[in-house]
């Protein structure tokens, strides 16, 4: 951190105080004031994200590695099972999900960061409801992560997925939903954790297994029993599956390939509708948001 010389501002500048002070008043609680608080917390996340180009680049590395390195590397040994579909095309929906996941985690982590650097206190003492702060934070994380998702979305033609307005809107919607729920989860965890290292420790412990089990990298049919059970319990499964159905709905591939690669999640043989899956992700996100709000409202 550089230091700047104090000499320019040692004494109060003459004349600075000769004008009548501008008096402002702080209004009582209202819906409008809470919305303003939500908006500014949301905007702060955006401003910080835009200023931090390194972070934008860094969080693209992992999804790109999975998509292009693993996708291309395993292509030769997997081609028999994919019925001629490029492995990259197959894992693309899963990659669309994890791209927003990692970014959303980072956004939630900034709460821990804010606590370490004191800024959280500035928000906590403001005459607004804690829920407004938490909601603004979750929306901020969701927006930032979706922006990241858009970059991954632009890569679609490279993995043989066409640009299609309906598809793009659908993907954006699902990404926003997933990013919101993950941020809510992260904020909920961040309420209890005071140190950055512990936060990332917990995240590694929870997020990586969730990602691997979710079926982002494999079809969810014909799994060994233990993995099938874990897979159906993993919330991320219900974000990856609708994403894959959406993407595969816009591909022209053989019925055999479709059946093998996009079997859809089943509960005891019943095909879970995509809308229900998305609804579950939303519900879970809202529950975690409520827990996060409760945690922040009762602390201090």
């Amino acid at each position, binding site marked *: *951190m*550089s*230091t*700047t*010389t*104090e000499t*320019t*501002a*040692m*004494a*109060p*500048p003459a004349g*600075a*105080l000769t*004008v009548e*002070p*501008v*008096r*402002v*008043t*702080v*209004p*009582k*609680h*209202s819906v*409008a*004031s809470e919305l*303003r*608080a939500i*908006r*500014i917390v949301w905007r*702060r996340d955006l*401003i*910080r994200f835009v*200023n*931090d180009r390194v972070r934008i680049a860094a969080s693209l590395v992992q999804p790109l590695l999975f998509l292009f390195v693993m996708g291309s590397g395993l292509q030769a040994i997997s081609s028999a099972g994919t019925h001629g579909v490029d492995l990259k095309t197959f894992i693309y929906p899963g990659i669309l999900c994890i791209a927003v996941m990692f970014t959303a985690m980072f956004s939630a982590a900034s709460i821990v960061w*804010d606590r370490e*650097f*004191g*800024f959280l*206190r*500035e*928000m*906590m*003492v*403001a*005459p*607004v409801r804690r829920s407004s702060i938490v909601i603004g934070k979750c929306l901020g994380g969701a927006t930032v992560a979706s922006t990241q998702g858009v970059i991954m979305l632009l890569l679609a033609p490279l993995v043989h997925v066409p640009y299609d307005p309906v598809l793009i809107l659908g993907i954006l919607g699902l990404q926003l939903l997933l990013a919101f729920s993950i941020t809510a989860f992260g904020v909920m965890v961040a309420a209890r954790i005071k140190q950055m290292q512990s936060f990332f420790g917990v995240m590694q412990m929870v997020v990586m297994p969730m990602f691997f089990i979710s079926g982002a990298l494999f079809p969810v049919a014909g799994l060994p029993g233990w993995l099938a059970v874990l897979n159906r319990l993993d919330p991320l499964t219900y974000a990856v599956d609708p994403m894959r159905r959406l993407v595969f709905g816009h591909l022209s591939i053989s019925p055999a390939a479709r059946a093998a690669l996009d079997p859809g999640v089943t509960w005891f043989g019943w095909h879970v509708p995509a809308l229900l899956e998305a609804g579950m992700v939303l519900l879970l996100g809202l529950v975690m948001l409520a827990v996060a709000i409760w945690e922040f409202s009762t602390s*201090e």
Partner: protein
Amino acid sequence: MASEAQPADGRAIEVRALAKTYREVQAVKGVDFDVAAGEVFGFLGPNGAGKTTTINMLCTLVKPTAGSATVAGHDVVRERDDVRRNIGLVFQDPTLDSYLTGAQNLKLHAELYGIESSLVAPRMRQVLTMVGLWDRRDTAVGTYSGGMRRRLEIARGLMHSPRVLFLDEPTIGLDPQTRRSIWSYIRELQQREQITIFMTTHYMDEAEWCDRIAIMDHGKIVALEAPETLKAQVGTDRVTIQTDDDDAAIGALAERFGITARISEGAVAFGVPEGEHFVPRLFSELGMPIRAVSVSRPTLDDVFMSYTGSTIRDAEEDQSKHRNRVMMQMMGGRR
């Protein structure tokens, strides 16, 4: 708005039997005081005396265990939001977002406090000019020096025209020159904006700037007066002598003059009326060599010493020694 009116008796802060206990530790043991509107009120004491806990209760960050307090006419427990709307806070630890610019930090504050949009820009200009940061408003706070950050925090605390400004150790860790400039800002804005200032410090020289000071020690207020009154109450000059055998000197002082002296900051110190006249007697009657002597008029340090039995620095040294000892015991280590 009726609720915005000053309390009829012109009191900005009223505190009655306020106490806070953390598990077994009594941080604040029931304090009473009033602060008049427009007053600069200082809380003085060593680290760990309960100053920060008291300030945190007054600005609604910590719930009192017992007693009550009102700030700007609102109860700190029952009317938390009303208190928060009327106070500005500058904490001991920095609470700025160093990735944002100075202006962005203030803008964020204005939005959180719901300040009328058309007034945000002129008010921001005013508070930034007041602390001499208007020219640096579009630079990231990360590039500011320590003094600039503190001034920006003061500007932010004033952004919403608070009626009471709380400053918790506003000049800690700053060099004397910057401290002086921050004090002249504080004084000037207090006159300009007619706000009440409640601050804590453990710099004795800073307490001189206050209209009234409360000395806090071990969770209690031991004195509360204007600095001049407190100094006059001491009534004695402070004499410090250096000898080859301090313990013998203390013994000799007690035996021959009936004076209770103690060791403070490496020298024997005691108070006597009319110190200059006492020194010649001291040299002829003490019966042991004196290497150096100094006589000084009472300072707030002496006031502090007369009420707490040690200088503020000694009190802090004792505490840090105690803390270190506790740490060592906890770690199972031995010196």
